[in-house]
């Protein structure tokens, strides 16, 4: 079946429908990872977005157990070519069936590089995928321009508290749409991990007396999460060691007087160099964010930049002055992407007084 991707700027790509044939409007973003399409699909941070994979051959190893959550999150999936025959010893199915099962629409067979260049030049924009050949641009474009994603954290977070056993440090993980490997990275280091829904109040978490608090990744504009930001301020003041990733990093910064803004087209992929400003070492990181923390007006008495992106100089992490708190914009839990910065979990354990 034919499908069309219509962008806010009026560009139309014609391809084939994959997954669900349902019509969808979403914000279109691109990811440059060459492997890890399944981790991308199941990363809750993509809630409210349609993902374009720049690597043209997707689905080569099918669906494996490497899922970062229970289901795929993007509103839609855009690829150049879906492998007709996945091959891997752990393969359990095809992307096509997976998308159908979860009712996620998509489009294949389009020039994803041309699409990526539009997003790079004009910035992230909204788009529609439809199988209706008689679409009317004049009717669709105003709808695309008006479209806003909102309250995505609410959709991506868990509903109830959940405890993962461990004999070591007790960590409270605030789930803003957490990837599984965050909890797993902590568990692998012996931690007992208690996962709290995003809207849990600070008092409830602190009442459980965790050794440390982990703030997870998650989707959307951090500024929309006003309630959470207020709670984080209390956690900041509690003197409990805190480690935050991605959205967690942004929210903690906003809670402490920093600002954030939407990037032109964000960082999504597994090849971004980040520099540790303490040591000068550069690590290749996994990234997925469309918003970034502004550090110009950040009071050094509150926090100082700890990591910076080598390519564009944007902030990649903060160290909070006088506190056992550090936060990063990138993803040390990898999955997909490089595992180079997994040592940060060890650092967190050490901060909580553990021996890792």
């Amino acid at each position, binding site marked *: 079946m034919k499908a069309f991707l219509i962008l806010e700027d009026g560009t139309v790509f014609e391809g084939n429908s994959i997954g669900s044939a349902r019509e969808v409007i979403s914000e279109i973003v*691109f990811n*440059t*990872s*060459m*492997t*890890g399409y*399944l*981790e991308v699909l199941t990363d809750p941070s993509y809630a409210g977005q349609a993902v374009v994979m*720049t*690597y*043209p*051959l997707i689905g*080569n*190893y099918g669906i*494996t157990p*490497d899922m970062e959550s229970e289901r795929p999150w993007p509103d839609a999936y855009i690829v*150049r*070519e879906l*492998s*007709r*025959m*996945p*091959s*891997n*010893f*752990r393969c359990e199915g095809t992307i096509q069936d997976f998308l159908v099962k979860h009712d996620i629409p998509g489009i294949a*067979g389009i*020039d*994803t*590089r*041309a699409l*990526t*260049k539009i997003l*790079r*030049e004009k910035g992230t924009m909204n788009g529609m995928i439809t199988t209706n050949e008689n679409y009317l641009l004049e009717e669709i474009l105003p709808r695309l321009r008006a479209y806003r994603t909102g309250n995505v954290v609410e959709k991506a977070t868990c509903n109830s508290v959940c405890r993962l056993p461990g004999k070591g440090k007790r960590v409270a993980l605030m789930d803003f749409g957490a990837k599984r490997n965050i909890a797993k990275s902590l568990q692998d280091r012996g931690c007992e991990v208690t996962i709290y829904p995003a809207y849990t109040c600070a008092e409830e978490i602190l009442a459980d007396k965790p050794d440390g608090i982990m703030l997870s990744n998650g989707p959307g504009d951090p500024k929309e999460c006003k309630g959470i930001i207020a709670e984080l301020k209390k956690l900041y003041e509690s003197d409990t060691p805190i480690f935050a990733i991605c959205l967690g990093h942004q929210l903690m910064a906003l809670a402490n007087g920093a600002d954030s803004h939407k990037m032109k087209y964000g960082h999504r*992929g*597994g*090849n*971004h*160099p980040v*520099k540790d400003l303490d040591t*000068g*070492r*550069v*690590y*290749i990181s996994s990234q997925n964010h469309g918003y970034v923390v502004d550090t110009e007006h950040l009071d050094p008495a509150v926090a100082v930049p700890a990591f910076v992106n*080598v*390519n564009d100089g944007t902030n990649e992490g903060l160290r909070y002055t006088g506190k056992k708190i550090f936060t990063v914009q990138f993803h040390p839990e*990898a*999955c*997909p*992407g*490089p*595992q*180079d910065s997994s040592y940060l979990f060890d650092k967190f354990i050490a901060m909580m007084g553990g021996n890792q």
Partner: protein
Amino acid sequence: MPKNPDIKKVLVIGSGPIVIGQAAEFDYAGTQACRSLKEEGVEVVLVNSNPATIMTDKEIADEVYIEPLNVKVLEQIICKEQPDSVLPTLGGQAGLNLGMELAESGFLKEHNVKLIGTTSETIFKAEDRQAFKDTMEKIGEPCAPSQVVHNVEDGIAFTNTIGYPVVLRPAYTLGGSGGGIAHNETELIDILTNGLRLSRVGEVLVERCIAGWKEIEYEVMRDSAGNCITVCNMENIDPVGVHTGDSIVVAPSQTLGDKEYQMLRTSALNIISELNITGGCNVQYALHPTSFEYCVIEVNPRVSRSSALASKATGYPIAKVAAKIALGYTLDEIKNAITGKTYASFEPMLDYCVVKVPRLPFDKFITAKRTLTTQMKATGEVMSICTNFEGALMKAIRSLEQHVDCLRSYDFTALSKEGLLKQLKKVDDRRVWVIAEALRRGISYEEIHDITMIDYWFIDKIAILTEMEGRLEKEELTAELLKEAKRLEFPDNVIARLTGKEEAKIRDLRYANGITAAFKMVDTCAAEFAAKTPYYYSCFGSENEAQGDTDRKKVLVLGSGPIRIGQGIEFDYCSVHCTWAFAKEGYETIIVNNNPETVSTDFDIADKLYFEPLTPEDVENIVRLEKPDGAVVQFGGQTAIKLTESLMKMGVPILGTKAEDVDAAEDRELFDKILEQTQIPRAAGGTVFTAGEAKEVANQLGYPVLVRPSYVLGGQGMQIAYSDEEIEEFMEIINRIAQDHPILVDKYLQGKEIEVDAVCDGKDILIPGIMEHIERTGVHSGDSISVYPAPTISAQVKEKIVDYTQRLARALHVVGLINIQFIAMDEEVYVIEVNPRSSRTVPYISKVTGIPIVDLATRVIIGDTLKDMGYPTGLAPEAEYVAIKMPVFSFEKLRGAEISLGPEMKSTGECLGIGKSFDEALYKAFLGAGVQFPKYKQMIMTVKDADKPEAVDIAKRFEALGYKIYATRSTAKYLQARGVKARRINKISQESPNVMDLILGHKIDLVIDTPTQGRDKSRDGFLIRRNAIETGVYCITAMDTADALASSLEHASVSEKLNLIDIAKVKNI
């Protein structure tokens, strides 16, 4: 960390002559690195014995020594030039070994010279088998169970503990020389004995066989601050068991999930960190196909063939960055030259698929075993880029220039199903075609996978291609179908064949439906950042990114494709220089080529690089977009010449010598007319199509005669026939490949062979120098030892040569380069062959005369005259030194290949000896070719009757050098009767000790074996030569070569110290 200010002058070690396993990739890496060093204001001293390289140009380095690559020579250079550092990681295994030896001996420390780019500890840890195993064990990286052995007994004992089959890997050899898989004790003894001998340190690793696992490679970089990145990973379609140089390779890996990908990536970073490498490194893995188990196969702590491939596949300039790291920079300080925005500390992301296919030499060595093993056999490779795997494979196949353009090009339809299954078990260069045929016959994926262990994903991709073949044959050719066929990169001619239509019809249908190629950019970052460097590949069904508009004049330079015997790196040298010369004159330059090993495909050589097959259709796609003002074909070897007609049809003017004049030189009748007109003699002869005609001509001329196809390079198919039977045999071989052109039969004249290259501006010529071959006519010019200035011909003969060259160049209206081969016999000069284009000797003669002939030829093509440019005409003054080009062969890599020299070229590379005297130059040339005598002072002679008189003098000279001479019956008898103390030995068929025992006893330096006339039918002679080669014994098959070697050894025994000549300072005019 910024640049280390202590590094001011660096000695860069090149990799020497091109041999199988060490090819053009090191010229590419070395050239890029030298330019990178010079960019930083560092003075570069370069040493490489290979004169065909670009790195040995005076533009690339400040001081250039084309000298033999051994420790003594390097020590002398270091004493003379006093560099503060030595960079050994760019010259392949040869360079690394030399760096290691210099460090180990304490010489570097003594002279206060640092090894940069790596340390001797690092080399030791990565290259020494036991040290490597210990290091891997220390950091918990798994290796296959293995043991280093120094003798056969230990090898057998260890194998008995782990079981057969085992893989054998000799330490410190290149291209896996001497390695292999042993399935039983006989094979083990055979391979192990050979491997122990070839290893520099006499050690071989015996290892659990992991054949059938996936073979995955990572290219990693690390700087002195410890920052590491991976440039690229690659997956070999052929599982472990086939050398990666002989495998079809795809980048990035296709069948690995992120979990496997990251697991191996992390491992590679751990390894490079533990080895403390600063620069580039290649790590090879075997990954179990159905689990996460993996083994580290090998680590190369240097740039390599794989790193050249990774550079071209991603756009990331590994050698350039490695050179900067060696100077002290960290990755985050080095700009990514492609984007100009980002830094070297990132990992390239591809939004396309890259396929590399090896170029194997079995068309040249028809007796050689086609089987692919852990010992590399490919002479070169091609790479292609497409947005899908099928398309990339199809493009790579037609880039090979081996008469293959699709998956039907090797015909296995005659095989039964059983026959096919049997053929599938044979791992050779045609395996992909066998799989395609198996799929057409309905053999299941499972069966194919179980036999080949090739991943299902790849088998399915091949099936997609065979399904398309079927659809094209059966279905009506709709625009939709055509569009899909083009997306899979079926060329028009193949579609035409399959649909039974004419190629022109297919082309019209495409254009009528807007199905045209689009060009996409290789930008290292999957379009995340705007890139500056126009490096393009084509695909169908996409939006075009390449911009054709420019205000400047535009020239298309066609490259020479994969490196093969007969068309080597020399043509890349010419293409690159031509491009630079055009750029200097203000032209916009466009290079089209598909060889990832070369300098010409580096992203900053031309204004635009199209990484594409060199077929008419592919070139036309580029022409349609770029509309060049002209194309140059005379520098890209036969590959480019072959495109002349098509380019003219596309309306592209051929710059320089006109196509009809090129034709006139190749076409027998036209050429005869020109010779008549210019009154230049040549050997009598005729053109024929059939064996009957050939015999008729031969009998008229009288035997021996030279038989050869026209329009070929490197004398392919050329033979000397002594009888009607041989004519029949040779004609049968030549006609195995369909001939569009006639076959030439000439009277064979045995005289001195002379070669000249000249620049002609349409009126005047400039001959930089006359070269004389040491071997008499009958040995291909590429396989002859060539001497400049010509030492034995008279002034009169030289005059004649200059005169003939002038006449021929004018008669053929040459504008640019011309190469002529002559025979000088009894003061008479005959023409053998005229090529109005660049030749193999162009780089060599340019360097030793200091006359930049490619630049001059290019300017002549643009319209300058030699006089305008201030150059004299006629023959340039002779140099005050002698330069000798020595061919280098790779026979030991090609089991079963016939090594005796003849009219068909067999050498893979060359080296240069340059000295104050003939003897010194000759000695250096032999040294450069790896002939290091004497060791045991024992030799074997077995010569044909015609050579016996000459053999006496040669034998006496070797005796005088202290050699003990063994000879077979008739040779011994002849020599003894003339006062040579030759010891008679038994023939192979006779009882031990016989000639074979002597060779295998590792006590022989040299075998002189001149085969009987014509094609040697004696199994004995073949066996002697093969065994000599495979046991590392130097083997000579022409008396002239033996004579030269004797002179060289006589010189060596009198002089110890060599005179070094800085080529960069050479200037004759």
